[in-house]
């Protein structure tokens, strides 16, 4: 289930808009706000575990497209409507999120003090009818794969030797958790093989409250990769990855992939 939500910025048309460089986090908070307004119970189930934050894998991925975007140091400027791509394998999440975003009381929603958005149009995207055991994907948002070294998390990139092993561990964990949410207890059905076609390292500036609280730093740097790659494995697993994204922080705007034609 994959949809596109188009938001218009309630400033004069043609004007250049600006968002902080960690715009993904802003959209994440927008989605959370919308969901909590519409269905608090479902929101709590997804993001909270009693009074603690729920770190369980989220059954969705999103990616933000800012047209004509231009990066400055701490900001990104763009011109035109904002496109939010949302993908999930979970109908409950989708229906709740779609209904949340449709909620008129939400708009105009202030992404920042100067940038207010309103929903303009939504539509469902056509998904591939069939998944093969070998598919080529391209990233809409960088993919983050990390491994633990002591207490630290270290990014692993396709150029690293151990990449495929770490990649499989991460994906297996992800898929298992998402399937558990649906009441299925199924791991990755077949080991994945990753073949880079045109992949490059990407460093992204991001911001989450936990990081700010624990480190006192405002911005975190995340290292991932983006581009074109081929993935081989069980078609059902590939579909799951297509629908829910690949890697870490998918609920924060990373790991969104599209099938390359």
């Amino acid at each position, binding site marked *: *289930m994959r949809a596109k939500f188009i938001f218009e910025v309630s400033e004069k048309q043609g004007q250049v808009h600006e968002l902080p460089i960690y715009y993904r986090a802003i959209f994440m908070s927008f989605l959370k706000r919308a969901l909590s307004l519409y*269905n608090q119970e479902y929101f709590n189930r997804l993001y909270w575990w009693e009074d603690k934050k729920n770190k369980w894998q989220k059954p969705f991925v999103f990616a933000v497209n800012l047209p004509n975007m231009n990066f400055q140091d701490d900001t990104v400027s763009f011109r035109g409507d904002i496109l939010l791509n949302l993908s999930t394998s979970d*109908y409950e999440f989708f*229906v*709740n999120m*779609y209904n949340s975003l449709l909620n008129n009381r939400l708009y105009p929603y202030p992404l920042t003090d100067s940038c207010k958005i309103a929903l303009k149009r939504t*539509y*469902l995207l056509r998904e591939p009818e069939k998944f093969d055991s070998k598919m080529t994907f391209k990233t809409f948002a960088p993919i983050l794969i990390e491994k633990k070294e002591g207490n630290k998390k270290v990014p692993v990139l396709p150029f690293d030797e151990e990449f495929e092993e770490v990649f499989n561990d991460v994906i297996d964990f992800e898929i298992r958790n998402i399937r558990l949410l649906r009441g299925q207890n199924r791991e990755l059905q077949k080991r994945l093989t990753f073949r880079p076609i045109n992949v490059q390292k990407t460093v992204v500036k991001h911001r989450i409250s936990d990081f700010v609280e624990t480190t006192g730093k405002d911005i975190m740097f995340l290292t991932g990769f983006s581009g074109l790659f081929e993935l081989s494995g069980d078609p059902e697993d590939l579909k799951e990855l297509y629908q829910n994204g690949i890697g870490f922080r998918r609920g924060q705007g990373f790991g969104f992939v599209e099938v390359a034609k």
Partner: protein
Amino acid sequence: MVERVYLGDWAYNAGIIGFIEIMLDGEDIASQNIITVGPNYIEFNRNSLQGFSDKFFKKAYQRYPRTDELIDLGNKLLQKLKDNEFDKNLKQEVSNFKKRVDGFSKLKQLADTQNIALPRNFSKDDAEQYVTQIIGLLNENKQEFIENDVKTYLATISSIYGQKSFLQRSVTTGLKNRFYNDFEAPIIQRTNKQDKHHTCIFCGLRPAKKDALLDTGLVSFLGANKDNKNFFWNFKPQLPICEICELIYFCIFAGLTEFRIGQTKKFYFVDRNTSMLELYQTNKLFMEMMSREENILKEKGILNFLNDYLLLKLREESKFSLANILFIEIDLTTVAPKLYGFNISKQKAEFITSNYDVFEKITGNYIRINDNTIYPFGGFMQRFLNNTLSFQFLSFLEGQYLSSQKPNSKINTNLSPYRLQMYNILTYKYLKSIKRGGELMDEKWLWKMYFFGQELKKKFLASKAENKITSLAYRLISALRIGDVNTFMNLIIRTYMSYNMEVPALFVSCINDRDNFCALGYSFVNGLLGSEKDEKVENSEEVVDNE
């Protein structure tokens, strides 16, 4: 001398009830003095059996009054011939009358000997003459014909009686006399020879009648007949039964409630042995209720009659089941009669009684495909009773309904989405509460979903896209039929998104529960196709349609 008869097994009890019915001949049990009713027995004087043969034949004739029916039909036909033009329809009626006469072998024989016939290309005068002559024949030989009708009737239920002396094929006249001489007179005059060595195995009170054969003394479906005489000592199929018990068994037919649907005839008996009076009154009430309802139902037309009858029978059966009373259905259409006792579980009985009003709403529907007519209620109930009911049947009905909506469709039905919703509710409740034993979701949810469907329908109509309604319904139903939640949800979401409407969250609340999901899904489709209120179906229209 006073004879006492105690309650026994169900067949014996049916015999007692039949015996009371015959003896009282319409008199009220409370104000008569022929039979004394005790707590678990009846008493009567042997002398009061005087005239039993007449009453016995009268009762049997009431069940099959073919002679009177034919006279009545003939008279009506004569009147029509006098009053109306001799057209094709009337000619057909005369031919039908002749067919009935030809099927009445004794009458046909007599007519042939007297050269009464209807010419091949008969005129109005020929027809009048033929019908008059037949009526004349019937009236002249009425007593004989009546006896013949009794014989025919009792022969059709011969599994109850076997080959009684007066029912033997060789006996063609004087049946009543034969009955009188063989059974009534010897009892009153006490001329039956008694078996000195045995007492009656049924009552245990009276000495057995000498040489009473199994076949004349015992109901074959109770387990003994000539074919299994090797079970008996020395292969002697004689039975120690007394003359009174034998007579009681003769009366079983009058104790059973008879009900006929088309060619099928079924018999019912409610057995409760708490007290004689209660047993009598329960069965009497059941007989009256069924005959009263039969008339009401017949007035409603055969279409509803079939369905309503089924439901009515089930309701009564359920009531008895719930009260732990043995309810017996006897099918005499087969060589070996079948008995169905207490064949409905308590759970199902409760289900029927508690959902009776919903059941009532779905009777009277038909689906006509070319010349074939299907009555969905019958199929539904059959599946319900056989434990094979599933959403597949509902899916079939939905499909038929949708096909009937196409222009120039060969399918014609009076099913409406509202009625389909009733089928949906019942199917869901059955699957959840009886078959799977799960917890039912609130019925309000199903209606909520129905209204969501209607809301979307309004949106379609407002945007002048009514042609999309049926195609969407088709696709939703086919997704539900194969349990494809993904396709169903994709269709729903796509449609709602195209109108910028909120998707009913109810769908996703039970996405992992197949029964709940299907019930909600079908409710939605019914709402999408339906209107706010039930489309009233006039029975009269149905009958006209049906003819």
